[in-house]
């Protein structure tokens, strides 16, 4: 695709349910990032993939959060047993690895609301 695509764009879920968020990066971009943005706040780093491996998982807030990437392309972020504090916009970005001045291209995000 021409840009980073995220789905769903909006998700309302009940507390305690599991949710899966999807990110389809720009073709050929080997680096993929997940961030969380609470209302009126900046970006909170969650996890970073180089290809299919995740060298930096330090941002995942709890063991309820996990992410995977297969085939060096699509990534899914899974939140188990959702809590109300998980409500936020989840942004995915991709970039071309191996070069300086790499630009992170962002999707429009998934707005998650836990009720």
């Amino acid at each position, binding site marked *: 695709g021409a840009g980073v695509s995220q789905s769903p764009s909006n998700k309302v879920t009940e507390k305690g349910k599991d949710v899966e968020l999807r990110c389809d990066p720009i073709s050929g971009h080997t680096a993929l990032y997940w961030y969380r943005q609470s209302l009126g706040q900046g970006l909170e780093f969650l996890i970073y993939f180089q290809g299919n491996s995740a060298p930096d998982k330090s941002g995942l807030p709890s063991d309820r959060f996990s992410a995977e990437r297969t085939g060096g392309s699509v990534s899914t972020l899974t939140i188990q047993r959702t809590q109300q504090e998980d409500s936020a916009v989840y942004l995915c970005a991709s970039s071309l690895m191996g070069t300086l*001045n790499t630009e992170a291209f962002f999707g429009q995000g998934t707005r998650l609301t836990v009720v």
Partner: protein
Amino acid sequence: TQLLEQSPQFLSIQEGENLTVYCNSSSVFSSLQWYRQEPGEGPVLLVTVVTGGEVKKLKRLTFQFGDARKDSSLHITAAQPGDTGLYLCAGEDDGQNFVFGPGTRLSVLP
């Protein structure tokens, strides 16, 4: 962990005024970027600075990278309502991971 701080956190000004926002860190970054995010959208890259002391201009926006590559500033001349948004700075560390600051939320009133 490399951290970026931004100031001010919020800024509300009248159309036509000038403003400067700052991005600071105790760490050295190989490059630093500025993004603008509008409501309901993902951040979009404005500029990348790489060389210490570098100054880049983008129309009414002037970006400067500190000599030690630890800080940066964004100056907007004659601000317009269309400049309203969240301005984020991001540093690219040696692992090519992007570290974002918390952002400066700018509101330009007509």
